[in-house]
């Protein structure tokens, strides 16, 4: 095994450890961490068994294996960004519904409190 492979493997394992730590401290949802974990796992496999990359390159008809790496990385990034866009849309929609419900509820509470205070004033 080459030195570079070792360094890459250590970095990847550290990243994996960091990810797991964040999930443990509930800073990251497993749902969103999963794609990153799969990504790190795949990178580890390619790092330890580089011939896999050459094999895929051959299958795709890509002359230089490193281009396969760029290509796959690019596809992965685009997919991740798209998924995030969808979830931002969903979140903003939910945020809108919640704000509206909150505004309606706030008015009812305000009016209840006002009628309460005026009632007690009347009693006194």
């Amino acid at each position: 095994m080459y030195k570079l492979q070792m360094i890459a493997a250590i970095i990847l394992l550290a990243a994996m450890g960091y990810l797991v730590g964040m999930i443990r401290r509930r800073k990251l949802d497993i749902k969103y961490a999963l794609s990153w974990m799969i990504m790190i796992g795949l990178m580890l496999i390619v790092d330890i068994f580089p011939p896999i990359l050459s094999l895929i390159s051959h299958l795709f008809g890509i002359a230089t294996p490193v281009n396969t790496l760029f290509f796959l990385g690019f596809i992965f990034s685009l997919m991740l960004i798209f998924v995030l866009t969808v979830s931002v849309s969903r979140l903003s929609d939910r945020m809108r519904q919640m704000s509206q419900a909150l505004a309606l509820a706030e008015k009812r509470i305000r009016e209840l409190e006002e009628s309460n205070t005026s009632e007690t004033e009347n009693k006194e």
Partner: protein
Amino acid sequence: MNNKKKCLVIIPAYNEEKSILDTVRDLKEYAPEFDYIVVNDCSKDGTVALCKKNQIPFLDLPVNLGIGGAVQTGYHYALENGYQIAVQFDGDGQHDARYLENMKESLEREKADLLIGSRFIEKKGFQSSGLRRLGIRYFTILIRMLTGVRITDPTSGMRMAGEQAILIFATHYPKDYPEPESAVAAIRQGLKLVEIPVVMRDRMEGTSSISAGKSIYYMIKVTLAILLERMRRY
């Protein structure tokens, strides 16, 4: 019974402390049968304090939702409180409260579900700039082509909704630049849309939400929204 319909004026407000009192005074004077509610869209000025001080009923949104989200809050309120008619009314002094009674009569007479106050039927009062009129004309033609219905002023924010329209708008309402898109959504869901002539004033305070830079985004976004609305199945 029919004349005793509960009517609500929805006044979306973002930093309107300078004009909101005038708007409410006009409403009290010229449309006394209408209840009204200010929807404060997270104003940074004293809009809320002013409403509290003058006992103007208001809904206070905790985060800024933009015009679409604010107006929709008003429709939710109308639905929750059993209003049969809800009318959108700008708080910046552009709309004239004297038309409300007239609009209500037209809505009932024509048995319409959605009534739009149009500046371009009688072509009186504030007519917007030439370029904007051209843009509005383009939307009129686009909506005519896609739905067969002619709306002379699809960007007009002065519109009155009947019960069915209130329900539809409370369920779905576009977030930004909602006017043309929501009109098409109403037509697509089988509502009867009628326009009546109104005269609008130039705004007393504030500036249009659509600046020169945003107008290109506006044209593209609204065109796309109308096209997609036409493709939706109901």
